[in-house]
């Protein structure tokens, strides 16, 4: 309901109260007067009756001759007419026994109605209500028989006006005396009530204003007595409400502030957990997952909603994982799984993931545990590296042992002096020399790669004629013992700008690529070394028609120690170091090493170097 409507209703109610205050005493006066009039009327009627009956009886007992007037003096009826003080007297009449008028006396304006004499003697003395011809006036008639010596001579009839509701002259002052104080009291009463109501009305308006303005202030009214008491108590209540409201508001502000702070802190913690490089899952005290950062779902390949809401069986059927997680869930304070658990997720068999649980101790009370933090780590690479390292050591050992074996056998044979031709001795010495070279090369490779990785290797750059370098490497490598099985090709322009490079390192890189090309080629394969310069970039390519490298393996071949599990690769010895070293060397020259390969068709490795000297030349 709108405010104006409320006002209208309030003022209407106020006006109605005022009206009631005026109307109520008037109504009461009217009712009282009606009752008085009614009572007077009834009294009057019964008075007339008593009087009528009495009079008609008295008259009926008067001798007949006395009733009929003689010449010269008035009859009894006339006497009654003049003497009857009653204003209601209408007429008196003597009739014979047929009802015919013998004599009568009536007040002016009244025609005595005709009356059929009653047949039954029990009705001779009776009262009757007669309506006059004008249909307005009513007459109460009393009649009695006139009997003389036991003979009915006629009837005496007396008619009285039926009294009307109305004031008699005598009643007016009486009523006025009653009404005047009523009106005076009503007016006084109205005035008093209005005066008493006035402060309430003001208070009502002020409260109305307060409600409309939605504000709380004390009501300012000067009143006395109980109203003043009421206003005072009301103001005390307002005061109390005001302080309560301001307290609540300040509490609310505090709450809002601390809730904002909490939200801020929570999002800060969540952002920290989200930013962690590790996949993090948080279990609360009751063992439910309360937080999962985005890395968990991508690591386990399970949507976050499933991880948070569902039971573990929905994302892992691995018995060990279920046991581990259930241990965390059921026993958050003790019996923490101390060891980390490594497992392969159901949906990605190539991955290896480790879980480790850490209890979340309260920083203040060490006994209290908030829950558990489970750290998920992708240890696939770590495991591969571990495996590769183990294999690497085995390979290195083998690579070292092979020349050592040769050395041991030749030296033992040389120790036996008998039967050794000079030719054999020369060969033995050469072989021993070569094998020592081989060991030293392997060790150098190992040292180079270590140095490069530790960042302690300095490039010794010089201007090098690429063609000369490549031809030299190519010729050396051709004598690998497989020259009869394979076809070797070299393809490059005769003139190329000199390259500013570390010759020895680049030789190792190209040598490693060529060694691989030969190693992984089958009989009748073709190994091609080519070079070209496009703009400032120099491309050195080593191509073979060998076993090729699978797309999966291409992602890892430059990783140190990596050796493919491919059967054909495994048939060939290697230490998983050659490509890694080659890439490191090329990168030291700010170049790049790329591979293109198809399984069964062969591989092509491309070293791309920026020819800084040619840039300089062009600039000059």
């Amino acid at each position: 309901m709108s405010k104006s409507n409320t006002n209208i209703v309030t003022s209407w109610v106020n006006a109605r109260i005022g009206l009631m205050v005026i109307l109520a005493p008037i109504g009461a006066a009217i009712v009282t007067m009606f009752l008085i009039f009614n009572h007077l009327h009834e009294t009057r009627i019964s008075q007339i009756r008593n009087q009528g009956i009495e009079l008609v009886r008295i008259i009926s007992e008067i001798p007949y001759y006395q009733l009929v007037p003689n010449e010269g003096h008035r009859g009894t009826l006339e006497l009654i007419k003049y003497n009857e003080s009653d204003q209601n007297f209408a007429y008196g009449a003597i009739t014979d026994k047929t009802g015919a008028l013998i004599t009568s006396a009536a007040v002016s304006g009244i025609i005595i109605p005709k009356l059929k004499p009653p047949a039954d003697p029990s009705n001779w003395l009776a009262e009757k209500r007669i309506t006059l011809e004008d249909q307005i006036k009513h007459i109460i008639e009393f009649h009695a028989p006139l009997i003389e010596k036991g003979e009915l001579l006629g009837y005496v009839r007396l008619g009285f006006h039926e009294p009307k509701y109305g004031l008699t002259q005598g009643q007016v002052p009486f009523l006025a005396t009653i009404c005047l104080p009523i009106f005076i009291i009503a007016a006084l009463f109205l005035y008093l009530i209005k005066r008493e109501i006035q402060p309430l009305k003001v208070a009502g308006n002020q409260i109305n204003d307060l409600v409309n303005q939605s504000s709380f202030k004390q009501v300012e009214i000067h009143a006395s007595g109980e109203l003043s008491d009421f206003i005072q108590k009301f103001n005390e209540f307002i005061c109390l409400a005001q302080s309560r409201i301001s307290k609540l508001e300040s509490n609310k502000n505090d709450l809002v502030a601390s809730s904002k702070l909490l939200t801020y802190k929570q999002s800060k913690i969540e952002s920290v957990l989200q930013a962690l490089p590790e996949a993090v899952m948080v279990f609360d005290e009751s063992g439910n997952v309360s937080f999962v950062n985005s890395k968990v779902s991508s690591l386990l390949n399970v949507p976050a909603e499933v991880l948070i809401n569902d039971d573990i069986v929905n994302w892992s059927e691995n018995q060990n994982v279920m046991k581990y997680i259930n241990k965390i869930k059921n026993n958050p304070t003790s019996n923490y799984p101390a060891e980390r658990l490594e497992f392969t997720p159901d949906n990605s068999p190539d991955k290896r993931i480790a879980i480790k649980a850490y209890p979340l101790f309260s920083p203040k009370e060490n006994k209290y545990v908030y829950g558990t933090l489970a750290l998920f780590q992708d240890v696939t690479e770590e495991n591969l590296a571990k495996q590769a390292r183990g294999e690497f050591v085995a390979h290195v050992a083998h690579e070292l042992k092979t020349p050592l074996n040769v050395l041991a056998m030749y030296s033992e044979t040389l120790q036996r002096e008998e039967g050794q031709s000079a030719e054999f001795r020369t060969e033995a010495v050469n072989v021993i020399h070569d094998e020592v070279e081989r060991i030293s090369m392997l060790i150098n490779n190992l040292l180079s790669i270590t140095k490069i990785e530790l960042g302690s290797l300095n490039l010794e750059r010089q201007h090098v004629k690429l063609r000369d370098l490549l031809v030299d490497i190519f010729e050396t490598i051709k004598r690998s013992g497989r020259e009869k099985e394979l076809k070797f090709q070299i393809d490059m322009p005769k003139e190329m700008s000199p390259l500013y490079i570390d010759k020895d390192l680049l030789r190792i890189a190209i040598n490693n690529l060529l060694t691989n090309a030969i190693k992984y080629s089958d009989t009748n394969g073709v190994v091609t070394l080519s070079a070209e310069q496009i703009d400032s970039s120099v491309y050195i390519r080593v191509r073979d028609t060998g076993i090729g490298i699978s797309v999966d393996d291409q992602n890892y071949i430059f990783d140190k120690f990596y050796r493919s599990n491919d059967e054909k690769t495994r048939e060939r010895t290697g230490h998983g170091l050659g490509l890694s070293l080659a890439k490191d060397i090329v990168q030291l020259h700010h170049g790049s090493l790329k591979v293109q390969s198809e399984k069964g068709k062969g591989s092509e490795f491309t070293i791309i170097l920026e020819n800084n000297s040619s840039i300089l030349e062009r600039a000059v």
Partner: protein
Amino acid sequence: MQNILIVEDEPHIIRVMKLSLEENGYSINVAHNGEQALEKLNDGLPDLLITDINMPRMSGDLLCKKIEEDIPDRQFPILVLTSKTEIEHREWTANMENTFFLEKPISIRKLLKMIDEYKNGSGLAA
């Protein structure tokens, strides 16, 4: 015991063994890996087979398994050249009879002694 088949990928080792054994009157046949050795065995069985383990294409252990399958009534002994660490992984020879080991680095003297002892019926003792 005259014919010896040497299965080895390292050319220098082959050369020394071949020379030394030929000097002692043995006839030497050479295979560079397991595959080649199986081919040679098809042409005729040797009196002794000496094999390395770590070889391209077909390793020594695989070769021995193949021989066990292909020649169930093998009479000739097999001498496996192993390094110390490989000796620790000899499970694959557990059910193979008439198989012996010689530890690397190979001593020609030891090798000749083992062959002599085998011929004399005292077996091949590493």
